[in-house]
């Protein structure tokens, strides 16, 4: 059944473009929404027998090298959820039927690409689907064709091409060492005698490629410009799930599944994670454009995830994976709210916006929920994942990094609270007297994401037992 997750979007795109334009355009949006909801439901049934029974005969002609485990299932669910949210935002924000149709098609290609990335069991297929997703994200950033978008996209393309080259070089070195590209074969071969110089170069080059894709410091040059200059639904998708999938998930998969942990890898991850966490938080404090502040905050949170992976223990990896999921949820919620504010007021500068809470109470409340989750305030979901990472760092003996993580938690709280106070509290200036609260359709993603944050926070013990601990045990070194 797993190949269906890639094939269905692919066939849908072909069908949508072959049928007559009038039918296709009206149907496209609804079809994409249905596909994302179906994927969210299908994640829970991936391993049941009836799934393979129904699709087995049809799919037996195909031989894909695909596997799903807990981490892939978590990613598949997040991908579908964020796509659903982004589609609803796009339906409200994008005017023009042809443009909405283009966006829906591109997001379906991105969906197929991301599904392939998280399910791939082969190092080169992983690379191919990373490229599919990245190229689609380039096109999505520029599909409105304004000049800021072009410039941001060009910088992103250059750095992403550099990451491509690094990854291909590392794949070539791995093939020299082991002769095959499948995860299990490579892992088995690497436990035997290999040339350690080539192996070390392969690991370093691979990690550099993933750091560029994930946007960690010092490879983050493309991230703020790309996030800020993209249109709102694209920002939701890009910040919420695309960077996480092609950068962070692939790093976790390759480090745990192929190379295994070693002191060198752990220390590299810890250092880069610590730099990203602190420097990005300091940079976020100084921003006047709130979308740019959210971009730097993304870098900082991804640093947390890398710190969790760098700890090397099952608890650390489980915490990192859970934080990945939480970050997708709360960052998307913040970007959805920012697009709502931008739609209503037409400005993104924190110097012009005050007191919006009086006119947009729902947006303000959900924004508070997301900010508190990001800062790690109990009992919201973000608190639990951060605590897991901090405890994992402490227990594995990296006391300095643990202190860095705690200190940055305070910084995170500081800049998010300043964002809240600036935009939502205070006195409403006259120029903004006419803004209205978001409509019912726009409110659906806001309420849904906020409910998930609160729900994951309150029902955490159940989630811990059924999802997090098995995940950590399966992946942990």
């Amino acid at each position, binding site marked *: 059944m797993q190949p269906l997750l890639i094939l269905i979007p692919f066939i849908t795109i072909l069908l949508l473009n072959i049928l007559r334009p009038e039918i296709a355009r009206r149907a496209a949006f609804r079809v994409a929404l249905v596909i994302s909801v179906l994927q969210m439901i299908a994640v829970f049934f991936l391993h049941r027998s009836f799934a393979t029974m129904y699709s087995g005969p049809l799919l037996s002609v195909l031989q894909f090298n695909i596997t799903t485990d807990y981490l892939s299932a978590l990613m598949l669910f997040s991908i579908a959820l964020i796509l659903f949210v982004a589609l609803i935002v796009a339906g409200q924000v994008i005017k023009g039927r042809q443009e909405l149709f283009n966006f829906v098609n591109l997001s379906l290609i991105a969906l197929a690409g991301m599904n392939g990335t998280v399910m791939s069991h082969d190092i080169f297929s992983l690379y191919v689907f990373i490229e599919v997703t990245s190229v689609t994200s380039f096109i999505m950033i520029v599909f409105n064709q304004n*000049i800021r978008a072009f410039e941001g996209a*060009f910088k992103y393309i250059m750095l992403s091409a550099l990451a491509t080259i690094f990854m291909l070089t590392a794949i070539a070195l791995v*093939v020299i060492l082991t002769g095959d590209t499948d995860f299990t074969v490579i892992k088995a071969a690497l436990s035997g005698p290999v040339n350690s110089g080539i192996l070390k170069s392969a690991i370093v080059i691979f990690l550099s490629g993933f750091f560029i894709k994930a946007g960690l410091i010092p490879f983050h040059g493309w991230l703020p410009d790309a996030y800020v200059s993209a249109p709102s639904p694209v920002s939701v998708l890009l910040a919420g799930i695309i960077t996480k999938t092609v950068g962070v998930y692939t790093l976790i998969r390759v480090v745990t599944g192929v190379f295994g942990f070693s002191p060198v890898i752990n220390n590299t991850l810890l250092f880069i994670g610590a730099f990203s966490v602190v420097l990005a938080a300091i940079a976020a404090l100084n921003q006047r454009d709130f979308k740019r502040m959210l971009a730097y905050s993304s870098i900082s949170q991804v640093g947390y995830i890398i710190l969790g992976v760098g700890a090397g223990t099952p608890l650390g990896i489980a915490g990192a994976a859970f934080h990945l999921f939480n970050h997708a949820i709360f960052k998307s919620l913040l970007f959805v709210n920012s697009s709502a504010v931008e739609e209503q007021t037409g400005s993104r500068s924190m110097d012009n916006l005050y007191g919006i809470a009086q006119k947009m109470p729902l947006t303000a409340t959900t924004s508070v929920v997301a900010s508190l989750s990001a800062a790690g305030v109990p009992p919201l979901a973000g608190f639990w994942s951060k605590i897991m990472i901090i405890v994992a760092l402490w227990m594995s003996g990296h006391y300095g990094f643990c202190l860095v993580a705690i200190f940055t938690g305070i910084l995170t709280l500081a800049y998010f609270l300043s964002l809240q106070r600036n935009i939502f509290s205070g006195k409403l200036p006259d120029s903004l007297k006419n803004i209205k609260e978001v409509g019912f359709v726009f409110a659906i993603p806001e309420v849904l994401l906020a409910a998930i944050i609160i729900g994951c926070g309150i029902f955490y013990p159940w989630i811990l037992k059924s999802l997090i601990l098995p995940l950590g045990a399966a992946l942990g070194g």
Partner: protein
Amino acid sequence: MSREVLNLLWMFGIFASLLFIIGIYCILATYNLIRALIGIEIMIKAVTLLLIVAGYVTGRTALIQALVITTIVIEAVLVAVTAGVILGIHRHTGSLDTRKMRDE
């Protein structure tokens, strides 16, 4: 890893690294967007050479050729998309100078 294989690798590796450095030089020394893209292309050629050498050295030419064919397809689409972005920049600002692209 026998000594001959390592020597072979070293020889080809030097030339692949030279190509890579030429690509980086091309990107660093130019103010033109299209020439930056050409630099990226030269670097991708270097990596293709390394992949082919990997296939030659381990004897698995069939697998490597499949990988290289896929890589070439991806590279072609990447060039097409970047050319589109460059055309878009040119339509808006009329020049392809990286010094004129504002940093926010």
